[in-house]
């Protein structure tokens, strides 16, 4: 066989699997039809976070007087923001290309298609190559779902990929879909001066998240000027001179707004073309896999967004490593119970483990909850970011930590400790025994843990 493993798709799932496999001394082929780095590096995680950093800076600079740093004529240079974003993306994707080379992964440009249990064809500009491999990992990712309403084909309407590179900052923006992507985009453009409206079909934005947390974030975003409609269904989009008129229906009737741009972020669907005619089982969500990342064909694995499990880059890369471990015979199960999920707005939001709603159900109400607000945390005060809280959910019987939800400064970094705690089945007592540095935001986690027994220091009574 030419290769030990053929990987189709060069996103965070695929390239991580490729590098990890190469480090295990395997002969690895990686096929990518567009750009190494996939959605994540090119039009996902990284470019959004670059735009968010510029937005954060703008907000901070406008607000810096109270910290004794003054400046005049604070201006947004959209061209520079885009250039910076693009150069970060280039740096990172070039870095990954270099790593693939150094690790001797053979990279094929073209569209891969599985044509047999061990054969993959690669089509590149009408040239077709076929390669053979002991194992195959499908890592073909996902693409945005379109909405099918009148007007969705208009120039003004587009997905997040378009929204990352608008030629200028739109004066007004309607976002159809209040998931993580929609909310981050709303934060970016609202901060940079757009009038942003979110239309969400469900009763709350950020569907799967802990309700108290997503509510808090929603209120803050609204106070920053974003209009959020829930239980709102977009009906149609029409050209209205220079603008696009979006009609939508809420409980109170049909309304309309006219905006420069419409961003559609209603979800993503798996890239299934890669399967070809092979009998690989799929569901509505994507390729069906077992805990070892195997499809129904034993030597064919699938990882990342194409499996439709949790569409997150760190899930894709963890699945990638786990798939390779299973290929080399290190039987390792993929566990989806301890997956942090992050929203990079201001305040940030991050969650891991069970939400309050899930915990109540799973533990039959036998849970304890403690919430510590950042307003009482010293470090928060010194950096002037006192919005939000840490919420810890523990099971009543053993006081094991089963869920942590953070809204607030650097929530996306703070969640790492919480994830480790849940992964190691840490109890509240052990978290309390762990000394947390002063002054840090992570002390809010300690205080929330103390609050479980009503022993938080810097708040009189914890919300429980």
């Amino acid at each position, binding site marked *: 066989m030419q290769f030990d493993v053929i990987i189709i798709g060069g996103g965070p799932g695929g390239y991580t699997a490729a590098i990890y496999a190469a480090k295990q001394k395997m002969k690895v082929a990686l096929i990518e039809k567009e750009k190494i780095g996939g959605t994540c590096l090119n039009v996902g995680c990284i470019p959004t976070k670059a735009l968010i950093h510029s937005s954060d800076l703008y907000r901070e600079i406008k607000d810096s007087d109270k910290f004794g740093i003054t400046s005049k004529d604070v201006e947004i240079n959209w061209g520079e923001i885009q250039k910076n974003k693009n150069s970060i993306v280039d740096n990172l994707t070039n870095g990954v290309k270099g790593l693939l080379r150094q690790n001797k992964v053979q990279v094929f440009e073209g569209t891969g298609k599985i044509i047999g249990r061990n054969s993959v064809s690669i089509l590149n500009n009408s040239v077709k190559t076929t390669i053979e491999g002991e194992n195959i990992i499908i890592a073909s990712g996902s693409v945005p779902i379109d909405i099918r309403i009148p007007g969705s084909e208009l120039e003004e309407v587009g997905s997040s990929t378009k929204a990352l590179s608008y030629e200028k900052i739109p004066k007004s923006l309607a976002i159809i879909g209040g998931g993580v992507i929609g909310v981050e985009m709303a934060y970016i453009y609202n901060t940079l001066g757009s009038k942003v409206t979110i239309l969400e079909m469900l009763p709350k934005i950020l569907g799967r998240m802990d309700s108290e947390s997503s509510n808090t974030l929603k209120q803050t975003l609204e106070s920053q000027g974003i209009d959020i409609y829930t239980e709102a269904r977009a009906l149609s989009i029409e050209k209205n001179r220079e603008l696009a008129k979006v009609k939508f229906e809420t409980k109170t009737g049909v309304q309309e707004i006219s905006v420069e741009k419409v961003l559609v972020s209603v979800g993503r669907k798996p890239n299934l073309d890669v399967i070809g005619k092979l009998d690989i089982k799929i569901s509505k969500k994507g390729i069906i896999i077992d805990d070892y990342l195997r499809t129904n064909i034993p030597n064919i694995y699938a990882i990342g967004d194409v499996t439709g499990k949790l569409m997150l880059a760190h899930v894709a890369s963890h699945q990638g490593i786990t798939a390779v471990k299973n290929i080399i015979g290190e039987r390792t199960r993929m566990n989806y119970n301890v997956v942090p999920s992050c929203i990079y707005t201001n305040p940030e939001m991050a969650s891991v483990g069970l939400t309050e709603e899930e915990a109540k159900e799973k533990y039959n109400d036998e849970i304890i909850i403690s919430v510590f607000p950042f307003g009482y945390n010293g470090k928060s005060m010194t950096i002037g970011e006192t919005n939000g809280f840490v919420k810890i959910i523990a099971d009543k019987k*053993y*006081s094991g930590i089963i869920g942590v939800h953070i809204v607030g400064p650097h929530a996306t970094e703070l969640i790492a400790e919480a994830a480790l705690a849940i992964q*190691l089945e840490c*109890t509240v007592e*052990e978290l309390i*025994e762990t000394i947390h540095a002063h002054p840090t935001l992570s002390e809010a986690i300690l205080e929330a843990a103390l609050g479980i027994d009503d022993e938080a220091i810097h708040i009189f009574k914890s919300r429980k």
Partner: protein
Amino acid sequence: KIKEEDNKRKVLATPVARKLARDLNIDINTIKGTGPVGRVMKEDIYREEEKRNEKESKAE
């Protein structure tokens, strides 16, 4: 019934303690942990080993 459930919960032990116990052939379920909430720490395993060694040297 409740008791059964209690027993089902696997002993709380640190990752290093588990490895150490496996290595030294000590049944971790028999160890009383000294960590917070009784988690078995590596020191507990070392202590158990010492006890065992003492016994053995006495037996000899």
